[in-house]
């Protein structure tokens, strides 16, 4: 009997270790490529702009700010650098929260935006622009992001409550998120009705998403938030990969899936709230950056999480550069360009992958 039962194809040499490490190396290589592309794009983004700073001047100015003419110093340090950096940190933040939400909700369409975070931010911004154009003693530039942040964070709280009440059921969370989107949009529309033309234009402008209002303070806040949350994501990469094997598998290994889901949703919606409150809703990034990373790197979250961060940062950085150079003398709001840059790239990768697998 025993001879029949012996599986065929035994006695191979230990190829798995070799092949797996080759695959891992290739992915690390792709990650390094993305990092390199990001640095390059940051550089080009700093160079791009109407005032004709040369590459040499930029290098000098970065190494020794005092060597620049005051005018150029201000342009470089107070406009170009913060604008270029906010693109990267906001992209990174949205990419991170996007990939994590997609994984824990097991839904390729999920992103912090489908949880209502951005709609709530728009609602907050609308309140700020329409109802509180000027509050005594408070600088106007301060009210808008704070209210947008409050809106976004309260939507996170609501989502959290729903996650707790539903015991972490996926569908409930997603459906509630969509409902929240409609609710916030409806209320915001109410404010838009009573807004004057000027305020309305401001709201529309904010909603499109735009990096040029951000300074060092904003860069610092978003960066700190990202850095505070990223280690938790890294700590969870194995669990998130395991979760891709299905909820039944995860539960059977003793993973508390509901708790993991709750944690991830809290942190990614907080991160998204901080990311959008200064720059408006650049929503598409958090959806497409992770998918591009998935196509390039597979599902192993050790690679996928950093990959999603890098891809999203890269797309937003490229969009930021293009927004300044596409039409000379005009800065196109970056929210328009993210889709214009991201969709073709995404389609290209999708089609290429389809072609390869069939």
């Amino acid at each position, binding site marked *: 009997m025993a001879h029949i039962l012996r599986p065929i*194809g035994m006695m191979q040499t230990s190829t798995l270790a070799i092949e797996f490490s080759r695959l891992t190396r290739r992915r690390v290589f792709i990650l390094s490529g993305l990092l390199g592309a990001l640095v390059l794009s940051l550089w080009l983004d700093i160079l791009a702009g109407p005032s004709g700073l040369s590459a040499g001047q930029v290098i000098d100015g970065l190494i020794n700010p005092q060597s620049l003419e005051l005018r150029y110093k201000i342009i470089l340090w107070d406009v170009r650098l913060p604008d270029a950096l906010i693109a990267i940190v906001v992209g990174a933040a949205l990419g991170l929260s996007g990939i994590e939400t997609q994984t824990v909700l097991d839904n390729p369409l999920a992103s912090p935006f489908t949880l209502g975070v951005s709609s709530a931010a728009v609602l907050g911004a609308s309140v700020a622009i329409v109802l509180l154009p000027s509050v005594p003693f408070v600088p106007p530039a301060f009210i808008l992001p704070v209210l947008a942040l409050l809106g976004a964070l309260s939507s996170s709280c609501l989502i959290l409550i729903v996650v707790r009440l539903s015991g972490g059921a996926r569908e409930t969370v997603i459906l509630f998120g969509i409902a929240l989107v409609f609710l916030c949009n409806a209320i915001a529309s109410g404010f838009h009705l009573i807004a004057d033309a000027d305020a309305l234009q401001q709201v529309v402008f904010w909603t499109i998403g735009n990096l040029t209002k951000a300074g060092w303070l904003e860069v610092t806040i978003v960066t700190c938030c990202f850095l505070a949350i990223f280690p938790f994501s890294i700590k969870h990469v194995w669990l998130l990969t395991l979760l891709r094997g299905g909820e039944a598998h995860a539960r059977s290994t003793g993973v508390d899936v509901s708790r993991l889901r709750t944690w991830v949703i809290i942190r990614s919606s907080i991160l998204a709230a901080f990311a959008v409150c200064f720059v408006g809703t650049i929503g598409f990034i958090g959806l497409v950056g992770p998918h591009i990373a998935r196509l390039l790197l597979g599902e192993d979250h050790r690679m996928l999480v950093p990959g999603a961060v890098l891809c999203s940062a890269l797309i937003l950085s490229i969009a930021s550069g293009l927004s300044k150079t596409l039409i000379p003398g005009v800065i196109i709001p970056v929210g328009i360009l993210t889709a214009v840059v991201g969709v073709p790239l995404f389609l290209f990768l999708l089609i290429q992958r389809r072609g390869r697998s069939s």
Partner: protein
Amino acid sequence: MRLSVKNLSAFYGKKQILHDITFPDVDGGMVVGLLGPNASGKSTLMKCLSGEKKSKGNIIFDDDNLQEVGSKKWHEKVATMPQTPPAPTALTPTELMWSTARALALPYSDKELSRKIESIFNDLGLSDFQLDALHTLSGGKRQLIGLALAFIRDPELLLLDEPTSALDLRWRMIVLELVKNKVQQDGRVSIAALHDLDLAARYCDLLVLMKNGKVIASGPSEEVLIPENLARVYHVETEIDLSKPGYPRIDVVGAI
């Protein structure tokens, strides 16, 4: 090693699913077959035994009472293969095995782990698919990966929820043979929910026959698999062929 299950009850909401489940103590080296029609509570019992679902009553394994030691300690000894196979995502079997081992902090170096994964894949005939995306694999192969995921944890108590339901004739046999060998070698315990009575009679040392969340009969196969029991539980008329010792055959003549 010894597993003892006494007076186990479990609920979904207010609805009682398991009623006072008790079966004879299971000693190391034994494979237990859990039998019963659909919705009789086999999967629910598995979830209770694995600690995934809360239950009332006693589950004692190796002097540890599940209700007392807490699920973390329990999961160190117990591995379950759920009835649902791994999800058909773009993940590869190797990545899933690897991340499972790492997420559970199994004490293997990278080299040991890859050797272990490779040998499990070899045993289960998965070597040719180890770096393919799960969604490109057939249903049976995915079921085998579910089994591999339980094996990687080297459990003392191995719970298998319908491990062979999607497998062809050959792999059904190989899998149960493999489980039996593992269990006998190190004196471990395995419980498998099965729908194939012939296989159960052939490979299990103890059978537990369930219906509506109650144990109807338990014991060795010749005591449990008798026409009266099968008629009562499955509503089928059967003839049992014992002419070949060790290989009882259950012929289902018709539904009642």
